[in-house]
């Protein structure tokens, strides 16, 4: 489930730049809590971005991607008003999808 992502997509000269900020703890499995117990690994493993139905980026993450992962990339095409959709899955099987319109 998690909290909403923040997705920005802007097209310029035929190229769309996408910036995604994801709300996720990205626990490495190495951190100890206040009581000294290891906090289990909990991190996004896969993140897929689509423009309409077309996949424009597939990412595999390990636990050393920072908390609240940030991702920026560019793809050819994309017009104002069209949708960019981002889906992530984590190692506990949780997932979430958000979308934004290109502007």
């Amino acid at each position, binding site marked *: 489930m998690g*909290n*909403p*992502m*923040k997705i920005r997509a802007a097209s310029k000269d035929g190229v769309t730049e996408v*910036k995604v*900020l*994801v*709300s996720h*703890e990205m*626990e490495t499995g190495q*951190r100890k*809590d206040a009581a000294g117990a290891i*906090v289990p690994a909990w991190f996004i493993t896969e993140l897929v971005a689509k423009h309409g139905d077309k996949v424009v980026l597939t990412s595999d993450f390990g636990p050393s991607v920072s*908390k*609240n992962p*940030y991702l*920026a990339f560019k793809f050819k095409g994309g017009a104002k008003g069209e949708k960019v959709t981002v889906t992530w899955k984590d190692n506990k099987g949780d997932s979430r999808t958000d979308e934004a319109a290109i502007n």
Partner: protein
Amino acid sequence: MIRRLMKTLVGAAVLAAFAGGVVAQDSKVADELAKYREALADGNPADLLEVKGEGLWAEKRGPKNASLEKCDLGQGPGKLEGAYAALPKYFKDTNKVMDVESRLVHCMVTLQGFTQAEVTKQWFSRPGKESDIEALVTFIGAKSNGMKINAPATHPEEARMAKMGEYIFYRRSGPQDFSCSICHGQEGKRIRLQELGNLTTKEGAGFAMKTWPSYRVSQGAVWTMQRRLIDCMRQARWPEPAYLADSIVALETYLQKTATGTVMETPGIKR
């Protein structure tokens, strides 16, 4: 008198030790760190809290199953634009000068029916434990972006708080005989690589106040102004006041008054 003077000298020496020498050779390092922070500004992790705060503001919660949409932050019920920039402010209904955090807590208690203890239990986040207050303040703060800080403390109660804040700012106390002004009362002071800023001028106070709440990279978390100031009291080796204490609201009133006229730019990125 002599004891007082001794303490002053010790305090000054401590600060000189902090600030001396390193300045020139480390200015390149400071430039690199500024670049680092800039790289994080686009996609400031605090932006996620803003989105979360927006959701929390509208969500029906608490024993009264109510949203915060009728919360009056000083501009009328539900009016968020410019509210942060005009706080702290005197409120008739509580007969108190309140900052954004004390007013928000007041709304969560009166509108949503939470107890004060429930609301303030997690007033700041820890790893794995988020804070609703942080998210809500980040959201409220951003609703003042592009607007000028406007807290001239003209109401007599506000003026009284600003005076009290100014008094605390300059007053030396604690085991090191520190005051806020020792660290923040001059131009160009630093502790190691951190520029401290002169909070007694409009420029200095404005530069600081316009960016809070801020994402602190060293903490990996957003800090509200309450947290910033309570931690500075700790740095001054003073006893730490309770969350929402009058002394903190007084300091905020003084600082916001000094910063009045500066355009808001939150959430910021800080060390």
